[in-house]
């Protein structure tokens, strides 16, 4: 884990580094290099505590960087051998059979692996052995490059701790009780008696501890993803020519999906952006790749149901781009589709026709383009005393069952008086007498309070930094010039709900009773 961070920050290579995970202030150390451990860092230690070790660099764990580092490791592996096993995060196995004719010797291959790893910022332990498990264990247990000649596996592995075999916690505890700490000691146990005690896992461990376990390589295959890429000779800045290109790519992706009887559940659209003209002259010596890496634009389009209709998809992408256009001219387009099984379903005979899902999604996307993504969806009340508090959930048409249950809701539950809430609330000017509002002004109009009821006080979230405290009043306002046409439409005589916000120290109008 530490290596993944060092890879991103090469200055840390020879320093004590510890990684924390979790959310502050409750984060703790999850990994540390040798130098950090020597300084006194312990795994599980609190982040603030670790920061008291001034010689230790504390960084946050980054799953993205770990993933990237592992991908880089795979890249290195694939650059040597086409036959690779993606064993575990941070561990890969290469089939070197036949490669000596190309690279002369196994030593050379190991050295080349180390060298190429260094170019991507990694310093892996490398072990070469005649069987897969022996190589994995040797790489886990020995630092640097290890070559184990065929037949010497038992002797070479014998000194390694049994932990490199990654036994289950229960078996590891049993082995500790037995005083079995090294692979050699485990391999020396009689296998039949061991099987009586530890079962199949014991036998498996025994074989691996002795370096005798042989298995086939589980070949890794590149993920089944559908990516289409287009490098542009000329940068594109307008939406129309971009749509033309996108349509072409979408057609290709959808055709491939169709050939495999799949649809797309999501699309990832990435643009390589060219820097501005001024910057372009400064970086003209750089390769286009590095330029693209320096600035990218990415848009993820998640679909409510798997689709492969390129026209609909293009509309959705266009709407997304309209609401959030890329900040620069486009030099490269990468479109990746996440495959999924296409939707298969039949509506009930008596279910009323509802909007087509694809069309509905386009409509919602259009609305989102107008009002913003966070303002689209279904409102849901939050369990709190805070007045008017709600949150938005992605809109999803009610299923048949829930629609039915809604219909069954008794009419008596509906409120008799409607309350029209102003969002956002209106700033108000309120004059009070003996704690009771008697004049209210908002939207450029002022009026007298004919009747008032309140205050209705709520407060909460006191344990958070964003607590609230409000005094609400229900007031009947008679505006000074109610007949004046100049008065704003919102300021009509009537019953309003106003409130004093103790945190913001101001009056607001929450809404009006209809």
């Amino acid at each position: 884990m530490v290596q993944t961070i060092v890879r991103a920050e090469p200055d840390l290579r020879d320093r004590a580094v510890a990684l924390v995970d979790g959310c502050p202030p409750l984060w703790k150390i999850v990994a540390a290099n040798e130098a950090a451990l020597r300084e006194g860092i312990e795994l599980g230690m609190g982040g603030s505590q670790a920061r008291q070790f001034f010689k230790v660099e504390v960084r946050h764990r980054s799953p993205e960087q770990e993933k990237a580092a592992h991908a880089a490791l795979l890249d290195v592996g694939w650059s040597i051998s086409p036959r690779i096993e993606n064993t575990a995060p941070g561990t890969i196995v290469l089939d070197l059979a036949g490669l000596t004719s190309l690279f002369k010797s196994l030593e050379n291959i190991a050295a080349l692996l180390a060298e190429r790893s260094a170019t991507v910022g990694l310093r892996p332990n490398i072990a070469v052995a005649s069987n897969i498990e022996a190589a994995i264990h040797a790489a886990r247990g020995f630092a640097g490059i290890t070559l184990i000649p065929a037949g010497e596996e038992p002797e070479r592995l014998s000194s390694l701790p049994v932990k490199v075999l990654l036994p289950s916690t229960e078996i590891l505890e049993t082995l500790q009780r037995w005083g079995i700490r090294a692979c050699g000691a485990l391999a020396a146990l009689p296998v039949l008696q061991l099987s009586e005690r530890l079962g199949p896992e014991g036998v498996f461990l025994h074989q691996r501890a002795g370096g005798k376990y042989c298995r086939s390589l589980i070949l890794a295959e590149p993920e089944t993803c559908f990516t289409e890429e287009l490098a542009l000779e000329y940068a594109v800045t307008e939406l129309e020519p971009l749509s033309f290109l996108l349509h072409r790519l979408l057609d290709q992706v959808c055709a491939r999906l169709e050939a495999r009887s799949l649809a797309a559940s999501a699309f990832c659209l990435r643009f390589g952006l060219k820097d501005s003209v001024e910057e372009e002259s400064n970086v003209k010596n750089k390769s286009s790749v590095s330029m693209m890496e320096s600035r990218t634009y990415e848009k993820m389009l998640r679909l409510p149901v798997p689709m492969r209709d390129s026209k609909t998809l293009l509309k959705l992408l266009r709407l997304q781009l309209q609401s959030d256009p890329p900040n620069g001219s486009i030099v490269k387009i990468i479109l990746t589709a996440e495959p999924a099984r296409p939707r298969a379903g039949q509506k009930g005979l008596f279910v009323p026709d509802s909007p087509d899902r694809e069309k509905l999604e386009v409509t919602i996307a259009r609305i989102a383009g107008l009002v913003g993504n966070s303002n689209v969806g279904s409102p849901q009340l939050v369990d709190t005393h805070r007045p008017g508090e709600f949150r938005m959930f992605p809109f999803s048409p009610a299923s048949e069952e829930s629609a039915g249950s809604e219909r069954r809701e008794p009419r008596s539950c509906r409120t008799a008086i409607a309350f029209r809430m102003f969002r956002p609330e209106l700033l108000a000017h309120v004059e009070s007498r003996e704690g009771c509002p008697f004049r209210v002004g908002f939207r450029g109009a002022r009026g007298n309070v004919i009747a008032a009821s309140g205050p209705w006080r709520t407060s909460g979230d006191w344990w958070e930094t964003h607590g609230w405290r409000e005094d609400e009043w229900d007031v009947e306002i008679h505006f000074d010039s109610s007949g004046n046409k100049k008065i704003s439409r919102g300021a009509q005589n009537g019953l309003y709900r106003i409130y004093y916000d103790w945190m913001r120290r101001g009056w607001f109008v929450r809404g009006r009773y209809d």
Partner: protein
Amino acid sequence: MYTELHARSAFSFLEGSSLPEELAAVCAEHGMPGMALLDRDGVYGAPRFYLAAKKIPIRAHIGAEVTSTEGWRYPLLVASRPGYQSLCRLITRMKLRAPKGKGNISIQEVAERTGGLICLTGGAEGPLAHALTQGGIENGIACVRQLCDLFGRKNVYIELQRHLSREEEARNQAAVHIARKLDLPLLATNGVCYALPRRRGTLDVFTCIRNHKTLASAGRLLSLNSERYLKSPAKMERLFADLPEAIANTQELSSRLEFSLDDLGYKFPIYPVPDGESQMHFLRERSREGMIHRYGSSNERARLQIERELTIIEKLDLAGYFLIVWDIVRFCREQNILVQGRGSAANSAVCYALGITAVDPVGMDLLFERFLSEERGEWPDIDLDLPSGDQRERAIQYVYERYGKLGAAMTANVITYRGRSAAREIGKALSFDIETINRLTKLVGAWEYKDANDTLVNQFRDAGFDLTHPQIRKFFDLCLEVQDLPRHLGQHSGGLVVCQGQLDSIVPLEPATMPGRVVVQWDKDDCSAMGIVKVDLLGLGMMAVLEDSLQIIKEKYGEEIDLGRLPANDPVIYETLQKADTVGMFQIESRAQMSCLPRLLPKCFYDIVVQVAIIRPGPIVGQMVNPYLKRRQGREPVDYLHPSLEPVLARTLGVPLFQEQLLRMAMIAADFTGGEAEELRRAFGFKRSEVRMKAVEDKLRIGMDRNGIKSEIQDKIVRSITSFALYGFPESHAASFALIAYASAYLKCHYLPAFTAAILNNQPMGFYQPVTLLKDAQRHGLKVRPVDVTRSDWLCTLEKNGRDFALRLGMRSVHGLRAEIAQAIVNERAMRPLLSIDDLKLRVPAIQKSELTTLAKIGALNFIQGKSNFHRRDALWQVERVARLAGPLLETLEQRGECATEPAQECDAEKSNPPPTSTLSPLQIMTADERLVADFNGTGMTVGPHPMGYHRQRLKKQGVRSASELRGLPNGIRVLICGAVIARQRPGTAKGFVFLSLEDETGIANAIITPPIYEKYHLLIVHQPFLLIEGELQNQENVISVKAEIVGPLSISQAETSSHDFH
């Protein structure tokens, strides 16, 4: 004027967040004439509220919110004594038929007991709100009519609460309408849940705890706002300006509530005496018989003292009380249960004659007034020490049987939020993860002494938390807020109250968690304050040790020892005490006691009495220890504060050490009566009041002036009295404890195997961990044998070892081994020997793999195969096979105990003679350190060499001295010591000094850590199990310690040793 008539305190357990005292104080601040406390389903906080109100003074009205079967609560106010009795009985009835903490009452049951009670219609949880929600105004009217039928029209008030909520106001409108329609009075209340608005946060946290939620997820379960605080009359009048009669009616209702808690009507039960006799006559007869038994028939001094005491007892009408305690003691004696009175009761010659106490107050010239006086008009307090465990339970059950379920009950123990419990609950409410909560809770507690650097900020920083972070800060503030607030009701360890007639009419009774136990809703202090007599039947671990020791000695040595007739002044005992070789001895085993013993050099029983009393905060704070010891050693002349005080202080060389001396000093110097002197002690005692102390001091000085005592001498006398009253120890109590200390020393010196077995069998108790007790016994020559399933019982036993006995460790010490499994092993073994581990598993099939593994790991299975070379790893190898579950094919057969292919007889034959299996394992024998680690992990101790013993040669080369070597070294030299830390202490009286006890294979060495050294090495000192300490040897009057200058960790063993910390 407004009077608050509906308030909850924190005694509503998680539904209120202020103590009754705080409510009373705020009530007084507001100038309110009175207040009513209505806690949920109880009168838990009533005594504290009543006492606090009495001091201020305001009127303390009592009541309760009683839960109905429908879920709402009747807010009931007590108007008269019958009303109070009805309320107590209602609550008792609902509580006793339900599980602890639950219960409700039906309308029929309420109807039976409404006399003297006034019912309010309540707030959101009241009957009216419930009715309105269920069926609107018509239902509300029906509900109020029903209440009128139950309680009478004059005793129902329509309650209005205004917490600035729309829903509540709508309910209020309905309530006003109903009141007008039915012509019932309105009553304004605030449904108070806390005294001050800022306590709302605590209430919200309590709501989360109650509902198993976090603050983030509790939503509308939390308070709407902070309006449920105790509002001033002016605020309430403003709030109800539109309904002035609702305010005025509070005053009217308050005047109707005549009942006060000083009108409880409690009576102590009458002891049943033979026909024609009075209780007093019966007591006189028993006292006379006892006097002859204790003193003989011709001890005139004793006779006069007993007569004097009996006169006072008769005057105070306490004969019944003495007879009841005597009866309990008599029952214990008949049942061979060791019993001994402690505390001030030991000042009474009547108690001595009746066999309640074991100390002769006449011979020791103890002051009776410390126990009982005419002036005080209080019930005496007799505490009985019994062996903890079953024996004490038998005595308690005897009292229940004798006085009936509603005539006797245990006093409650109000469990309050303390450091760790508070931290844990608040951490959960704030959604902290378990690991963080564990780390935070570990921060809290720690040392008794806090210095300036022990700020919580520093403690939090050390544990890796940033107190400037708002969430952590909030956690910290809340932890402070909930300190001492009640959490739930527990049961006091031994306080029993008994009552003439029905105890449930005095205080509500509840079931305890322990089956067959009933507790009252008040703790012992509240009972005492309310004038309810209690008898404390306290469990004392050492009493159980003494009892068990006597039993073992009787069985193994064939000797019967009478603790009342132990040889006095046994030289072996005093020699041992003088060497401070007192590990395991009652009250004189602590590090502080050990450092005093070589200076005090006890030579007679009274020296032990002094020894028990001298290491107490009183003498230490009053700076009496050094003067006394110097005078004893002849290094300081003996003088007296005043010549007239010589008779009082002569025994303690002019230095006051006991509370009785304080009383006598006041009696002699200022002509106080015994009762006045005791009043003086109380004035300066724990519940100090400036006014009261000043008044008593003035009286004392006037008396001393009258007797011509100079002002500087007066100052000294006053100073010694004030420091002692708070922390001093009664001489009688010290003498009672000294008797037990002497008995424990006698048994340890003369019957070490039996004493060690008994003390190990009664763990946990005392100052040291079992391993320290064991190692100490081994150093004294006791042969200890390890746990062995072929020989060990559940408890430690004695085995013949030549002419003496060896101790066989019992299976009780094996961590995780269930008692029933150990008993099954013993039973099987009694039928025929266990032949192998397979045999053990076959015959005790319930044994779990973890239990077998632990037994194997600690060597308890080494002898089961009957082979001398069978070692722990061989056993572990076997266990792994034996304990392995059968595969799916044979699983059902194994569960049924069947063999699939063999006839039943053959199967049985195999069971009795399992086929020989290969017992040898390919595993290496455990190393010495591995055995040590296994022993400590499995039993917390080892019978093998001390961990330090393995490293002595190496340590010697480094110049490390063993504990035993230190004795022969001169004062002032630099030494290096090391050992397992067995005790860490930072007493409140020691100004930040830390005392460590390091144990090695030769004994215990003490180290003193100064505050700067502690500051420098505190992480090591607190966390390291083994320490290396360099410093100056201090050998003063045979008290040896090392003043640490450098502290370092020591890598000795992975063994998880344990220590006695921070007490």
